[in-house]
């Protein structure tokens, strides 16, 4: 066996490795089109229905068949995957910051993406509520019950979960809104709350499984839609929802990824898909999956499902997601400091 042969065989092996798999090519034609929607954890059931409804709407309107592929995961890691090249035509993430990152770091879409669609590019909203065990044995009524000694709280890790970041900010805003509340008090309040957390799962679904299936914790800080899903579908009456006196208006964000749709010539259908989410039919589906619809008519129809409570916004209370992220969740910011100091 000569060295020449060795090099040849090595080369052929290398060729087999890289030339074998064909480049990814979505079938885009006048007859059919494929979109990829990269989304976060809690929207699995929602988009299954939205996608089916949009496909028949689009087929009736244009005659074109549309297949919408879904990818779900933690909002932050999904955003990272898109930045690393996951060819998303549209993203529907848990918070605007995760879309901002795509604009700022990857220039995949313009920085003013949020102004391109109504309502901050957020076709449906939600909030953070408490899920407690049946009969509410620990008498949890509001945020200040969560940091009592002996109350065990389940929420995911704000570093990896969008829901957990909304919950963190909601707790902070509650403490700040108490009479004479200061940032120092808010920090102490949130630090004591996090002392009561036994498990930090990486995502919202992980936390739900920990609370519902493993029986850990007295209360879970949850997306309202996840809590409603859990009480309606999962639990057979073992859980109930407690609505705090105030919470945060959680605005999941949707956007077309310009870089992808321009390369794959899918802009028209991608934009129509996102606008469909704002349509009466799209809004109805969102409401059926326990998301708060934006359209007043649909909102009135489902009003009984969504209790009224005081909802603060990230824009007004924290100066937007960029600022909130830097203040609370960046490396070495307040969330990290709470743990460095507390234990």
């Amino acid at each position: 066996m000569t060295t020449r042969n060795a090099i040849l065989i090595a080369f052929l092996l290398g060729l087999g490795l890289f030339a074998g798999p064909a480049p990814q090519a979505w079938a885009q034609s006048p007859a059919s089109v494929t979109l990829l929607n990269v989304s976060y954890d809690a929207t699995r059931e929602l988009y299954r229905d939205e996608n089916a409804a949009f496909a028949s709407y689009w087929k009736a309107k244009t005659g074109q068949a549309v297949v919408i592929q879904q990818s779900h995961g933690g909002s932050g890691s999904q955003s990272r995957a898109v930045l690393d090249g996951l060819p998303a035509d549209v993203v529907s993430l848990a918070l605007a910051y995760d879309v901002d990152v795509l604009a700022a770091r990857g220039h995949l879409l313009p920085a003013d993406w949020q102004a391109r669609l109504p309502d901050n590019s957020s076709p449906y909203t939600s909030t953070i509520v408490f899920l407690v065990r049946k009969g509410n044995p620990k008498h949890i009524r509001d945020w200040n019950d969560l940091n009592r000694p002996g109350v065990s709280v389940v929420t995911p890790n704000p570093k990896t979960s969008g829901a957990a970041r909304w919950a963190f900010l909601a707790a902070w805003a509650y403490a700040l809104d108490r009479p004479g509340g200061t940032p120092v008090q808010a920090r102490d309040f949130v630090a004591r709350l996090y002392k009561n957390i036994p498990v930090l799962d990486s995502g919202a679904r992980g936390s739900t499984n920990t609370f519902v299936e493993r029986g850990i914790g007295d209360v879970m800080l949850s997306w309202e839609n996840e809590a409603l899903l859990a009480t309606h579908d999962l639990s057979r009456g073992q859980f109930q929802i407690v609505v705090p006196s105030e919470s945060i208006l959680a605005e999941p964000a949707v956007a077309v990824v310009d870089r992808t749709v321009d390369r794959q010539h899918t802009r028209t259908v991608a934009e129509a898909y996102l606008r469909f989410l704002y349509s009466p039919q799209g809004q109805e589906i969102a409401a059926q999956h326990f998301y708060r619809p934006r359209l007043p008519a649909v909102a009135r129809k489902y009003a009984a499902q969504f209790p009224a409570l005081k909802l603060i916004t990230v824009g007004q209370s924290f100066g937007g997601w960029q600022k909130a992220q830097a203040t609370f969740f960046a490396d070495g910011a307040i969330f990290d400091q709470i743990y460095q100091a507390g234990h």
Partner: protein
Amino acid sequence: MSTAGITVRAIPGAADPAWARWLLTGAVVLFLAVFLLLPLAVVFGTALASGLHAYLGSLRDPETQAAIRLTLLAAGIAVPLNAAFGLAGAWLIGKFEFPGKRLVTGLIELPLSISPVVAGLMIVLLFGAQGWWGPWLAAHNLSVVFAVPGIVLATIFVTFPYVARELAPALAAAGNDEEEAALTLGASGWQVLFRVTLPKVKWALLYGVILCNARAMGEFGAVSVVSGHIRGLTDTMPLQIEALYDDYQFTAAFAVASLLVLLALASLIIKVWLESREGSQ
């Protein structure tokens, strides 16, 4: 060292006192039952909780079928490649002394010490849109990460050491005498490899391939980083299990998990069967 003798008939422990035999056997059976059978019971118990019909139905789901195909494809590429690489590496290490041998041996084992998450990250650093070759790949409309090639690469990286690890000691222990005799009689290098050497170390090779295959099909961490989680397209079986679990479809999730266990155990059962056939001849 060779795995050839696992089922040999000589029973060396027969001389041990009965109480020691019973005590040790009892302890080991108890330990394995608690430690390995309980998780298995959880997997199969949950998978069959809604009955056999639901179990089979969940395996017929198109996304699950796509995941099964992808896993078989990834293992189908990774395992033969790693078997070839492992054979070459083991031959090199087991048959020759050369400067840098310890370096080569250490490097072959390196993937064992690297966290699967980091292994995935490395592939993203090389081939991701912001990585070294990402822009070039994008310009030529090629996808590596978030597509099949990335998944295969991650699988190859994680399972790289297993064949060489099992084979090198066996090759060294088997010695060179028969090979040299065959060479003297005019056999070519390849003939020696296939006719003389491989039959001697076939159990070690088979075992290395089985371990490699089991790890390849079950790999989660590294593949999770490079997959993109597109359902029905880039989700492998372990990722599909996670996706189903997070959909609250516990029965379906554990049904896929049980299938993965059966696939991996099937190769072991084949091995035991081959060995016993060999032994009875």
